[in-house]
């Protein structure tokens, strides 16, 4: 019994559902996510697969707090399919208690789809606008234009959701600071309540990475830093608060689903390539429609690789690595209580050094990064990696 309590404590409180919809109409130049071309046959198989997968998942004892549909482009599915998917998820897990997000691409937003989502209880729409500059959009290989994005947003607002997020990308090759500032101020003035800003990354297996290795584009850290600071200024001016490296929201509109993953609570991933963290295991579904389906047809959820077994050490480490990416930081007392141990001495030393350099502040039992610290959050994460294993 005692052991059971301890495990429950490690696992954290909230539960989320992540659903991956792997279809995209084209591949964006910067995208390293797994996606498939939207052929009808594939979509039908996918929907059947989701039904099968859901039936194989043991009903969790906790209530579901949040749901997040990402991709790919979930909004690419026709209204009828969206409706079917919503019903399947709700009948399995019940209505998400606090938040239900669906990602959409401006080019595939339609009123009937939005209505179907809303009718089923979706509370939040997240849309990848990336930029309002058509030249930059084209250089990213996006399908939409700024006009189309504007129209899509109008529709979303017309149907009406509790929260709307827009994604923007900065430090695009060729982008000037002015262009970035105007992308931000335009976005912030559109009556939305959440924005995510992503510094353009060059991940392997993307078209952009190829351009980078061919020397056609280059990475300019100074520019990235400057643009990042511009995001801080503009969002603050518009009454948004940064709550994570790349996320800003009006009070009460933070994305709960993501917050819960960064706090190392639990989530179940459904659909090809979806990642789960549940019952002290971390695993991913096969990142390929065929493989994913093949396993399901044989009556099991296949995995991309052996599940990683989580213990207090790993979870503590990740709570710090990912927790420090949030502006609220981490509460050491809470973590100590959850994991039944203190920070390793070497980590304490590193934290002290960061504090001495103005990258971190310690207030009461809380640790959080300063702006300077957030600029190097990956380096800090790297520093912490493997430091908690016993």
């Amino acid at each position, binding site marked *: 019994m005692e052991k059971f309590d301890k495990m429950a404590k490690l696992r954290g409180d909230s539960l989320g559902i*992540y659903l991956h919809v792997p279809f995209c109409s084209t591949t964006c130049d910067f995208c390293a996510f797994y996606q498939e071309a939207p052929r009808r046959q594939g979509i039908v198989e996918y929907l059947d697969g989701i039904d099968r997968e859901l039936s194989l998942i043991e009903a969790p004892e906790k209530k579901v707090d949040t749901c997040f549909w990402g991709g790919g482009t979930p909004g690419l599915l026709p209204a009828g399919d969206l409706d079917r998917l919503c019903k399947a998820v709700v009948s399995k897990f019940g209505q998400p208690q606090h938040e239900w997000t669906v990602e959409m691409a401006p080019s595939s937003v339609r009123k009937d789809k939005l209505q179907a989502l809303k009718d089923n209880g979706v509370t939040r729409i997240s849309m990848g606008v990336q930029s309002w500059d058509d030249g930059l959009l084209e250089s990213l290989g996006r399908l939409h234009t700024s006009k189309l994005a504007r129209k899509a947003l109008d529709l979303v607002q017309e149907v009406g959701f509790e929260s709307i997020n827009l994604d923007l990308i900065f430090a695009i090759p060729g982008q000037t600071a002015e262009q970035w500032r105007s992308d931000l101020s335009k976005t912030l003035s559109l009556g939305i309540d959440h924005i995510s800003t*992503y510094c353009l990354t060059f991940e392997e297996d993307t078209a952009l990475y190829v351009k980078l290795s061919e020397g056609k584009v280059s990475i300019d850290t100074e520019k990235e830093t400057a643009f990042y600071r511009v995001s801080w200024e503009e969002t603050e001016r518009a009454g948004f608060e940064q709550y994570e490296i790349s996320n800003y929201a009006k009070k009460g509109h933070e994305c709960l689903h993501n917050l819960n993953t960064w706090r190392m609570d639990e989530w179940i991933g459904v659909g090809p390539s979806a990642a789960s963290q549940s019952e002290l295991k971390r695993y991913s579904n096969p990142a390929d429609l065929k493989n994913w389906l093949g396993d399901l047809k044989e009556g099991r959820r296949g995995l991309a690789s052996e599940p990683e077994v989580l213990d207090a050490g790993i979870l503590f480490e990740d709570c710090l690595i990912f927790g420090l990416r949030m502006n609220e930081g981490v509460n050491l007392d809470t973590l100590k209580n959850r994991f039944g141990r203190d920070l390793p001495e070497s980590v304490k030393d590193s934290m002290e050094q960061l504090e001495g350099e103005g990258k971190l502040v310690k207030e009461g039992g809380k640790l959080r990064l300063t702006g300077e610290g957030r600029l190097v959050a990956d380096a800090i994460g790297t520093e912490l990696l493997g430091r908690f294993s016993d």
Partner: protein
Amino acid sequence: METENKRNFSIIAHVDHGKTTLSDRLLEHTQTVDTRVLTSQHLDSMDLERERGITIKSHPVTMNYKCKSGTVVQLNLMDTPGHVDFSYEVSRSLAACEGAVLLIDAAQGVEAQTVANAALAVSQDLDIIPVINKIDLPSANLELCLKQLEDILAIPAEDAILASGKSGIGIEDILEAVVSRVSKPRWNDCEQTRVLIFDSVYDAYRGAIIYIRCFSGEIKPGDGILMMSDHTRAEVKEVGVFSPHMVKTKSLRAGDVGYLVCNIKNVSEIKIGDTITNAMKPATEMLPGYQEVRPMVFSGIYPVESSDYEKLKAGLGKLQLNDAAFSYQSESSIALGFGFRCGFLGLLHMEIIQERIRREYDVEIISTYPSVVYRVEKADRETIEVDNPINLPDPSHIERILEPTIRATIHIPNEYVGDILNLIMDKRGVCHNTETLDGSRLMLECVVPLNEILIDFNDRLKSITRGYGSMDYELGDYVEAKLVRMDIMVNGDSVDAFSCIVHTDKARARGKELCERLAEIIPSHLFKIAVQAAIGGNIIARANVSAMRKDVTAKCYGGDISRKRKLLEKQKEGKRKMKNIGNVSIPPDAFIKVLKSD
């Protein structure tokens, strides 16, 4: 083949004058290598040689040439390196020859190693065939070259053959000259077998492969042989020739060059320069060998991963079998752990060895700041040799320190004399003699501390003279100098591997330079890092590695924590390849990079 129909010759020249390219043409003309498989600079067979476009080791090859008179002659050619660090390779090759083809780049004229290598050939009593090479170049100056030949080298201009290894001009003339002007194989009248060892390489399957020149008698598989220097006995397993790859033959006789494999287990027992004779019917007198080469520059080599120590040790052992001029001995460092103190002939030699360790033995290594060998006379009258700055005794125990010097011969166009004299002075050198070579060039003879030319002397000489200056040197005397140890501290920790011995007058400038250079090389970390130079606890210079400006990428949603962790792992992997001293990661090549002033 009759001994009198054999010729042995080397191609010698200043670096880059076209030896290996000319060898290509000879291989082609004699159909030794099929044109379909002949690569350019064919004899530069090591990867490193091909990449850098320089010859590092001498390469022997046997060719058969049908001369104009109709006789087929066996020509044993040795392509030699031109770089000053490898001049011992040249002298070893010459010892196995009766003649030398001396190339002069028609656009560059006679340079320092032209003179030095010609002198080596003369001292070994070889017949010299002068060749003005690269005459296809528009900037070729034949008149000047011929004049220099007479004035500087005292070789009659009418002896010279005009050639181009690139365009294939003069190839037959050279081959005919080798046949008619190079003496027949010498010392073949000795009744006993005498075979000179001029090189050896290590082969993973067959063990030591000994490169030999047979002067008299015969050597064949099954023979019992005797190494004359220490009377080691062995049995011959295989002999063969280079064509240029190894080809087995029944035997090697007087006038032949080839290889020998025997049953000597401990390969370090093979001495380059030794004479092999037949154990049943031994010769009484050895062939003239050559002076053992002694390393002049020392540096520590350490594995980045301490678990690679044994692998490194094994690698060094094998490299030494291929390279008698390289030495090593175990040592340890506070900063770097267990490793080896290695001796080299010069900086290029050092770089090459390090590169070979990385590649051929797959060990990531760190090498420390190079040092020469100092002689320290202690207060108690004892004299010790110090090749590692860490071992320099406390100043209070030192009576005086002597440092090695070199005697350098520098060739330069007249107009640069002022700048070069300044350079020599800047390097604490003294110029003893200035001589006019021809109307336009000067030869300077000077003495410079070895320590000073290690760093960038040659680079600066080249840049001042726009590539027309050259230098040759030999070891000179030890002289007294005001020297101290300078320590380098990274983030407050003294890193013993960076310590060096410097002249007091130069300490401050050198310290500043080192700190700044190091600050550039150490990648930015999360925090600011101070690099300081200190002498006896006093800080004399300082530079900062600025803290990392930005290192964060977003994209962490969908709950894929593993993916993000993998990205972080990747970054960490990059750091793991570095040497971590305290909490500072230093790239393994930092210790070498600090030397280069670009």
